Structure formats: C-alpha cells, structure tokens
C-alpha cells in the first residue's frame, strides 16, 4: 500500500504511523510516498529522527546504537534526513528515542540548519553560474534568451522554424531545465525551513501546555 500524507510535526507523524501499525500495516519505505506492507506481527511504536551523515561508517555506527538499544531502522537513508525506527519493546508504549525535551526539539533545528545550508549552496551556484554567463537569467521572464543561435529571432518562415526546432532540445535540456531544477530545489528547501520552524514552535507550545 502506498500513501501520501503531510504532517504538521514529527509527533503527529509518529502517531499516524502507530495507528497504521495497529491496523496491520508496517512501514517499509519512505520517499515521497509512505510504502506499507501487510504485517501480521503485533503493533509497534514508531519514532522519527532527523539526521544526515557525512559517511557510511558514521551512519552504520548510528544504526547500530539504535539497534543495540532496541530500535530497528525501517526507512530512511544516509542522506534522506528523516530516519524511521520501530521499537522492539512492544509491551512498553512509553518508550522513546529521546530522554529529554531538548534533544527531541533539536530534530527541527537540525532540519532548519540543513535547509539553510542547502539554500546557501544553491544560491551560490546560481549566482556564480549567472556571473560566468552559463545562465542568462532573463530567460525566466523571456524564454527566447535560452536560444543562442545568432540572429535566430530575425529569421522568418521555414528558415526560422528549422533553426528554432534544431536548437529547441538543447535550449530545453541544457538551459531551461537546470534553472527550473535549481529554483525548484530552492523552493523545496525554503518549504522545509518554514515547516521545521513552524513545527518546532507548535511542538514547544504543546509541551509547555502539558
């Protein structure tokens, strides 16, 4: 079963995953969609951590620490950020991967830091690429700047269409697509940043009330 869902916080996500587990669905993959398999075992407790790892060894060490203390990694990868665990201690519903509030809150801060870094890298790349003339930024407003054939737009009739269609694939793949991808990625990172900021405040407020 595949499902798409967005959550306002990690605790809301964990709660939903626990509910799915009670219905007999076990999470096996999380990319854009949550992938579940039918599961006959007892219901389990889910926990979501956020972390990106510099190398394989650190990631392995992290997974082993969790496994040693009773948490099986079910979804996530070295660079995915969100890491999904299920607890092997089925009888204890109060079990958590965090033993204090700060470290639980720190998930959001890390996501914010990583998003800001990502935005920084992409903007730097974009600015350098524009300065070196690799992208003509005017093409965002006027796509004709993505075409480099000299005098293309002064041509007419058959001559124009021939030159235009000849260059079109190159313009799309090498000039327009990269700009769309980079800008799309920046928008995604800004969304992540705003989400983490909003969720952190929401969860902090919730915890203070309780």
């Amino acid at each position, binding site marked *: 079963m595949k499902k798409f869902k967005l959550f306002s916080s990690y605790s809301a996500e964990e709660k939903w995953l626990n509910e799915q587990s009670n219905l007999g669905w076990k999470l096996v993959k999380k990319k854009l969609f949550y992938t579940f398999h039918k599961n006959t075992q007892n219901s389990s407790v889910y926990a979501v*951590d956020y972390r990106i790892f510099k190398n394989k*060894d650190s990631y392995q*060490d*992290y997974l082993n*620490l969790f496994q*040693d*203390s009773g948490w099986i990694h079910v979804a996530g990868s070295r660079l995915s950020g969100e890491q999904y665990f299920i607890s092997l201690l089925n009888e204890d519903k109060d079990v958590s*991967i965090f*033993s204090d509030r700060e*470290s639980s809150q720190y998930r959001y801060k890390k996501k914010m830091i990583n998003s800001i870094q990502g935005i920084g890298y992409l903007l730097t790349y974009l600015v350098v690429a524009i300065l070196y003339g690799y992208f003509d930024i005017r093409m965002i407003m006027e796509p004709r700047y993505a075409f480099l054939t000299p005098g293309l737009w002064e041509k007419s009739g058959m001559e124009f269409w021939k030159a235009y269609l000849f260059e079109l694939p190159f313009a799309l793949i090498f000039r327009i697509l990269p700009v769309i991808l980079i800008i799309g990625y920046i928008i995604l990172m800004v969304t992540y940043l705003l989400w983490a900021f909003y969720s952190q405040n929401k969860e902090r407020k919730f915890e203070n009330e309780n």
Partner: protein
Amino acid sequence: MKRDKNLPLTETVYYILLSLFEPLHGYMIMQKIEDMSNGQVRMAAGTLYGAIENLLKLKYIQPVFSEDKRRKVYQITEKGKEILLMDMSRMEHMITVTKQALEAGGKEDEKI
C-alpha cells in the same frame, strides 16, 4: 575568576564523561550510566547520539581505535577531565555551603 561557559554540566553530560574514563561504544555508555546512577538516569539512543556528537565537537571526548568496525568507541580527553573536575568542585562547594546552612539553621532552632 570567570567561570567556563559550559559549566554547570547537565547530569547526562556529567555521567557520559565519567563513564568514558575507559573506552566504550554508545550502547555500553548507556548501560554504564544506568548502572552508575542506580537506574536513575536512562538515556535514550537519539539523545545519547546527539550528546556524543556535541562532546566530540567540544573535544571533551575523542574516538579511539575499535576492534568492532561497525561501532565507534570513545574515550575522555584531558580537556574533558578538566571540565569534569571543575564541575565536581562546583558541586562539592554547593554541598559544603548547604551543610553549613543546615548546621547554622539547626542552632537557631535550638535557641527558639
């Protein structure tokens, strides 16, 4: 004298540093802390991982050679021992002044 900005240490940080007088990997740190604190301090995996990362950054602990390639092993550094001792004297001082206050308070009770 200006106090180190990392003082006072939290209870968990204090116990992590104390447990690392001998080289240990993550899960062994958790077990030793639970032991040393008579089961009072039970650290969860995510919290411990973050704390280790932070202590490495502060250079209070360092990775040491590990037979087990899949689990990193850490040990306290000189800098780590220094901060631990500073925190110990801070707590000793608190205990001393507390005892003094209790004694003085006790005497006043007698007068009444």
